[in-house]
Structures are given as C-alpha cells and as structure tokens.
C-alpha cells in the first residue's frame, strides 16, 4: 500500500459489463422459449429426457462462460480473496465456487443477493427463491412442465461444473425444490 491517507479507488462490486454480457447470453426468456419449441407436443417422459440434456448443456455453458468472464472482469473483492487463498492455503472451498455461483445467478436473475445458507470448509449451500427461469418456463411451457423442474439440471450442472473446473472435489445435491419448498436449494459437500 502506498500512502494510507490517499484514497484507493478500488471497486468491490461485480463489473456491470460482465453482468450484462452474461444476462444477454443466458436470458431466461430466450431459453424457456427455445425449450418450449423443442418440446412442443411431446409426452412428459420425452420432455423429462429432453429437459435433462437441454438444461445440462445450458448449465455447462452458463458456468463455463461465467468462469471465463469472472476471470476477465476481476474486482477488488476477488483480488483480496485470491491473496487470502495464497496466504492461508485455505478458503478455496467454499469461497471460490461461491463467487462464481454468485456471478452466474446475480447476472441472470432478478435478485440483488444470492442467499448463502452455509459457507464453510465443509459445505456450500445456496438458495434461489423467485427464480426467473422457473417463471418463464411456466409461461412458455405451462405449470405442469415447469413443476417437473427440467431447469434443475441447469443449476446442478452449473454447480458441478464450477467445482470441477476449479479442481475441487465436492458432491452436489439439490436439497429443496420450488414446487415443494417455495425455493430451490443446492448443496456442495466437500469430498
């Protein structure tokens, strides 16, 4: 640090340009419309099978791009986190995947925070309540299809991908669902 009495100009916030790039590319309305077109007139079983592939694919792209842009657009919070990881030899789990998951959801959902239920050396748990993807699926494909949560494959795969790409061994689980609990919840348990 140079002079402690001269203001630093750090930004601790997520870069807005990064967020709008992700928002455009992974727009909920667009993906729900595509999914509706692809599954029109199909049986529930077919929709389930197609939903899995479709949203797994979406989730993987969504997180890969998040990882790429999250690195391209650093902020001071991230820089300090990386310094803290280097210094302590700890913190990589849960804080690194947490950052990228926050970016992924905050950029594409109408939320101002991603509720983090647990973040400690063993577990990372987060929650999505008013999910735009779910709303859009309801609009475009009907409540029945939406309630089968094809979109969960996107979240699960995104969560899986972030841990794989960051080389962290963790087991990913869905521990609550919107139709049953009013929110979706995902947990990564350290292996």
């Amino acid at each position, binding site marked *: 640090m140079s002079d*402690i*009495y*001269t*203001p*630093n*100009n*750090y930004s601790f916030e997520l870069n807005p340009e990064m967020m709008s790039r992700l928002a455009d590319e992974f727009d909920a309305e667009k993906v729900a419309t595509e999914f509706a077109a692809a599954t029109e007139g199909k049986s529930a079983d077919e929709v389930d099978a197609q939903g899995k592939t479709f949203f797994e694919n979406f989730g993987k792209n969504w997180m890969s791009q998040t990882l790429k842009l999250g690195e391209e657009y650093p902020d001071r919070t991230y820089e300090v986190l990386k310094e803290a990881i280097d210094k302590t030899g700890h913190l990589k789990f849960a804080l690194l995947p947490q950052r990228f998951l926050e970016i992924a959801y905050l950029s594409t959902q109408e939320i101002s925070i991603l509720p983090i239920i647990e973040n400690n050396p063993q577990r990372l748990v987060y929650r999505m309540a008013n999910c735009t993807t779910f709303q859009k699926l309801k609009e475009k494909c009907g409540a029945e299809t939406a309630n089968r949560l094809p979109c969960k494959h996107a979240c699960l795969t995104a969560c899986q991908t972030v841990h794989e790409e960051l080389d962290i061994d963790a087991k990913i689980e869905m521990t609550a669902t919107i139709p049953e609990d009013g929110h979706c919840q995902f947990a990564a348990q350290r292996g």
Partner: protein
Amino acid sequence: MAVPNFAAIDIDRSKCTIPFACKKCLTGCLQSVFSVSAIKVERGRETNPNEPGTYALHAPHRDKCTGCNDCIELCPEDAITVTFA
C-alpha cells in the same frame, strides 16, 4: 432521583486539535474516562491524525472521573478543565 455530582469535563477543541496523535490523556487516565473518534472519514483511506480537526476527543465516562487531575497535568495544550459542582 437527582443527577449525581459527576465531574464536568470540558475539552477545548481549539486547543486539543490532534487528539489521536497526542493521546496523552487517553493513555494517562487511570479511570479511562476519555475516548477519541475520527470526525472526518472518507472511503478508501485512513484519516490523518496529524491534520488538525480530523479527530475529536470526548469524555464519555466522566461518571468514573475521580478528579485526580492527572489529565490536566499531562495535557500539553491546557485543553482540559475538570469541575465538580
């Protein structure tokens, strides 16, 4: 209940201008009567304690003052007055 006879401690801010740098009364009072806080705080930087008027001295625990007058003797600026009614 009447207000007890606590010490009235007057700090002359025109004399005590850099309390965080001076801090003689803060460290010297047996009863830890004084406290100091920054009154000019800006985002992203520390407040310079040597710049006059950036910090202010208070006596939040004047109910613990015994009237020993140590602070008055320690103060290089004659900024403190302690009086009991």
